[in-house]
């Protein structure tokens, strides 16, 4: 399968979206809204849920379930208030000692007038800064498109995992082809050169683990739940100092 085929799979309409992972892996999910500054961004969903007995703050990008929902959620492209809501809930998790689990699926942070007026760059920058020192465990799972800084804003984590058909890239292959070769049609070449598949991520040390996918996503939900049951207690057992030192080294290596 070519890299571009993976891109198409990662974007496929029938693919489970962020909320499906929250709903199928956790119980007792209660959604919490708003960034307390400007608005509630439906492109990012967050709240508290339970993994067995363990309360966890959960966050995801949500692309939407049908056309109307997709429009409402801006096709999963967050505005600054989405990142600020995520940060608010992460800081809340830190206060109450809850681990944070993020499901990342976005073509990128939204490129719009309002997004720039409200500081899209600043919002992402602040998340990167604060996540690097958040004193509770963070696990991020790339479940679809990992579109650049807009994805990274929820993926500065102690463990980063990726699904078999998800991608992670610094720019879309379309953007890369049009900037480098002034030819958006060379998107297949761009996808190949950029190294954006799950295998590439594992090879480059960007992720710790790849989770296989089948037609029925139940097995993937179960595998992720099992992996979280193993990883979260391990990470919770570390002192905050050790946890942050490990997270620092994890990103320092690149």
């Amino acid at each position, binding site marked *: 399968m070519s890299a571009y085929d993976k891109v198409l799979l990662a974007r496929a309409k029938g693919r489970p979206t962020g909320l499906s992972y929250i709903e199928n892996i956790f119980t007792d999910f209660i959604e919490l809204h708003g960034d307390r500054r400007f608005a509630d961004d439906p492109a990012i969903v967050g709240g508290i849920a339970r993994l067995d007995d363990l309360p966890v703050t959960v966050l995801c990008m949500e692309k939407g379930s049908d056309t109307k929902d997709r429009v409402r959620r801006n096709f999963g492209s967050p505005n600054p208030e989405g990142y600020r809501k995520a940060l608010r809930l992460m800081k809340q998790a830190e206060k109450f000692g809850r681990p944070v689990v993020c499901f990342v699926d976005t073509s990128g*942070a*939204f*490129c*719009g*007038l309002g*997004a*720039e*007026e*409200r*500081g*899209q*760059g*600043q919002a*992402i*920058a*602040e998340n*990167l*800064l*604060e996540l*690097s*020192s958040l004193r509770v465990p963070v696990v991020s799972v790339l479940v679809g498109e990992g579109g*650049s*800084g807009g994805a*990274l*804003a929820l993926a*500065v984590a102690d463990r980063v995992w990726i699904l078999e058909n998800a991608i*992670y*890239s*610094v*720019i879309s292959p379309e*953007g*890369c082809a049009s*900037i*480098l070769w002034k030819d958006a049609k060379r998107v297949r070449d761009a996808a190949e*050169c*950029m*190294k*954006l598949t799950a295998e*590439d*991520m594992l090879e*480059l040390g*960007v992720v710790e683990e790849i989770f296989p996918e089948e037609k029925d996503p139940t097995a993937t939900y179960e595998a992720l739940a099992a992996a979280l049951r193993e990883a979260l207690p391990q990470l919770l057992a570390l002192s905050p100092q050790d946890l942050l030192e490990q*997270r*620092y080294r994890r*990103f*320092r290596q*690149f």
Partner: protein
Amino acid sequence: MVNLMGLFRSPQNELEKGGTEVEGIRNVCPRCGVSITLSEQEENLNTCPHCGHHFRMSPRERVAYLTDEDTFEELFEEVRGRDVLGFPGYEQKLRNARLASREKEGVLCGVGDIEGEKAALFFMDPSFMMGSMGTAVGEKITRLFEYAAGLSLPVIGYTVSGGARMQEGILSLMQMAKTSAALKRHSDGGNLYISVLTDPTTGGVTASFAMDGDIILAEPDATVGFAGARVIEQTIRKKLPQGFQKAEFLLEHGFVDRIVPRSEQRATLAQLLRLHRKRGDVL
């Protein structure tokens, strides 16, 4: 086949066309259209003496203007980017960038004094692949924050960047996380970081250390934003308002502390450094 295209850029002014005397060589200001001599431009810190337009400036020119004579020591010059992903054409692009900028990589780091106040300094380079952030740029900036944290020195960083260095793929993205983490440690040590946004500061640099300054300054009229204006216009299918993503626009929306013309930057930075002297520092 070696691609020679782009190795030689076309002459930008009379001097580069083969003139030998700076006196009398003229550039046309892109803003006011007035013809100015190169020596006038240089005397004015690479700004237009008529309308104040700020031309782009190389890191070494900035060092010469900002730091006290013979105080600047370059750091980490040995760090340079390489083609980790085997991206077609990247090695050649790096060679061209090194020729065009006469630098090894897209950021110059060091320590120096500004009116006697010592600081760690970084200057991104507009002529090195438009300040794009790859592993070497990220590594040098990370090392600078680590170095400054170890010595409790303030950091002043001049940003200019077209964004990520696509040829380094996801490793370029990881630089945003890496630099942010080092910056946070420096910050948690109670140390000052001032970012100075220059034209253009965009993409991943805006979404990381450019916007993380305790104090954020900007040069007049500098374009600063996350997404490129063309991409935004294509996304929202509307014309963008005049002045969109200019430094003045960011000031108005609360994302920049002050706009400081180049001629005042040295005094402003020195004043801010003095105001952040730590108790117990020798005066």
